């Protein structure tokens, strides 16, 4: 029984840590600009494939860690281009932004699909920083995943510090609170939105770098699953609430893990849990756990 509880707790924490990183960026962009960026899951997927493609390139043999730097830079730039080329021209219409980012996600998926590595599943285990595991109460704690969880917590804390203490962070908060007032105070809201989308893409890229070396690239459509779960996380935590995203991520993570371990035949429908969460929260508390009620 203790092993089952450890199994549930560890994997719930692991799942929560991954979703926290992905959902935080997703929520940030919505909170600041009211932008629902449906290509966010594709950033996660694409980072994985960028890492894979570079690892398959002879130039990077012995320089594996350079691939991480390049992949994160590229995905951040793609985030920026998404804003400049697609979101900015359409940002007055929420529906148009949703549709265009949805289209971008499909485009990125298809681009990966037609690549030579796009049709198979792959491991990028060369980028695992830690090997092996340690037994705790009869349960193997995998070192790579401990690294992920620790790094996720560190990134969340650094991010909170950045938002609250740095000049750019304060500008982001100002734009999220009142875009017009921020503009009157001399803040270039459009530029802040650009930075926000780039930061969110970077967070998705970091999640991919931390998680995928211990996991796998499951195909170009893998981004949708992460997008859906992130969506559940931010609906649960409250759209635009960073604390809510982190809390929501761990609640979703533990719920999936609990279903996997303790519910008979739970693994067959554990991934229905986020969808159920979306429906239930939207019905009983549309603003989420930490979100503010919208004034009408």
């Amino acid at each position: 029984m203790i092993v089952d509880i450890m199994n549930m707790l560890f994997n719930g924490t692991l799942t929560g840590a991954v979703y926290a990183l992905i959902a935080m960026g997703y929520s940030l962009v919505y909170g600041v600009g009211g932008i629902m960026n449906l290509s966010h899951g594709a950033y996660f997927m694409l980072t994985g494939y960028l890492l894979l493609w570079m690892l398959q390139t002879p130039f990077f043999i012995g320089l594996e860690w350079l691939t991480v730097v390049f992949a994160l830079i590229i995905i951040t730039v793609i985030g920026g281009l998404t804003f400049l080329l697609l979101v900015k021209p359409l940002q007055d219409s929420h529906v148009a932004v949703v549709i265009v980012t949805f289209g971008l996600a499909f485009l990125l998926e298809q681009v990966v699909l037609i690549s030579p590595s796009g049709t198979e599943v792959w491991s990028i285990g060369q980028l695992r920083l830690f090997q092996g595991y340690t037994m705790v109460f009869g349960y193997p704690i995998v070192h790579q995943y401990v690294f992920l969880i620790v790094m996720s917590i560190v990134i969340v804390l650094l991010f909170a510090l950045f938002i609250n203490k740095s000049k750019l962070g304060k500008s982001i908060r100002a734009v999220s609170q009142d875009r017009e007032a921020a503009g009157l105070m001399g803040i270039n809201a459009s530029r802040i939105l650009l930075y926000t989308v780039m930061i969110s893409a970077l967070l998705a890229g970091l999640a991919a770098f931390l998680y995928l070396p211990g996991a796998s690239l499951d195909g170009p459509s893998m981004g949708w699953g992460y997008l859906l779960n992130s969506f559940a996380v931010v609906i649960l935590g409250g759209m635009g609430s960073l604390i809510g995203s982190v809390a929501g991520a761990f609640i979703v993570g533990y719920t999936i893990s609990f279903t996997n371990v303790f519910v008979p035949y739970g693994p067959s429908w554990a991934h229905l849990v986020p969808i159920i969460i979306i429906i239930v929260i939207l019905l009983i508390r549309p603003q989420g756990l930490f979100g503010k009620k919208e004034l009408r």
Partner: protein
Amino acid sequence: MEKLAKRIIAIVIIAGLGVGGGLGAWFLFLAPGAGEYSWSSKDCPGAPSGISSDQIIKFGITGDVGEITGDGAWEGCYLAAKEINEAGGIKINDTTYYIGVTREDSDEANPNLVTSRGIAAAERLVYNKKVQFGIGGFRSEALLAYQEVFMDNEIIFINTGAATDVFCENVRSWYTRYKYFWRSMPINSSSLGEQIFNYLFRLIYVLNATYSGEIANVGIIYEDLTWTEDLVTGIEYYFGPYGPLPAYRNMLTANIPYDVTLTAADMLTHVNTLMAADCDIVIPIISAQGGLMLMQHYATLQPNFLVVGIDVQSQLDTFWTQTNGDCIYEIQMQSIHVTNKTPTTIPFWNAFRAEWGHDPLYTASGSYDALNFIVWAINETQSLQAYPTLTQKMETATKANILANPELFPSSVGGLGAYWPTTHDLVAGYPFGFTLFCQWQANATKVIMPSYNSVYIDSQLSNIGTLILPPWLITDWTT
């Protein structure tokens, strides 16, 4: 008022364009017979240029384009067509015909399956490309839907990828409708389950004799999909409380079905559940990415169990690179390898590798056999009539007839290709439809395991190797 009028005109124009565009597209591409495909020598690999559509026997392949299963079906058919065409095609009543192959994307390997895409693919093959024969299929849920298009149009369709029993049971129960349906690969789910059990029965016996009865528990982990149902039922029976062999009863201590969209974190949970259940052998029944995840965690955690089962992705030689070698020690089932299952197996293996640069997947060997099977029937009957001529000829490829006169039937590469005349299902069991158990060993080598004569006669096959256990497992079982 003027604004309103403009708005109404704009709406009318947009609606007109939309409806017009939609209707145009429908007439051009979707309506039965619309936008008819023009067959030419480009569809006939290995055939001379300049041949007309009338000289082509048209085969349509359904499968997921860009996925290993669908590509395998295409590659197998392509190779078979090329060989036949290069040999001069086939003669029907003194007229030379060539084999044309075309494919449509059924998107059936997509975890988020949309069955209408498979139906649309089948309709494009039947109505627009006017195929005379169909080959392919992989995902049972998809094939169940789109097989009806072929049955509606009385076109022979050979399934080369879906194991679910029900397909061929339909032939028995409603022959008038489903008589055009056949399965050349794989053997059905129940038979697969039986062959796994037969192999494990001997393997456990051998291991217990070597390691003093250490093998006591078995676990299964499988995709919660239609194709695994019969297989799982079989394994649950064989290792359950009412199993046929008392020594193997109550061995099943973990039973994990999972959703195919699972993540690596989910798989980690399941591997830990298998470890907590003290499994000594774990049977995966996996066709998608779960296999790679399982073997990754297996390599990291080094659990005290051996992995023996179905892992479709692992059948390809690229799996070693894909997993960075984490698949080492996995024993998985595959239809062919470099061994003399039949006299044509190794030549096919070599020709396939020369053509495509990688090992053939089970859908590839099945499709190769399927196309050759149909062409054999055409040759024998000198007819293209699906029923009764070709169907009844194909129904003569029974176990008894092939054993009595093997030279009268086409040589299949996956085993002696005999079919049950009442179900059109591939006959299972050595030397007909039988699976090979292969283990990944060091340096990316894949070795055929001895089956201890449980599934195949070891001495009759070439290149049989030796089982190598993971060192941590040996340590656990000897201490």
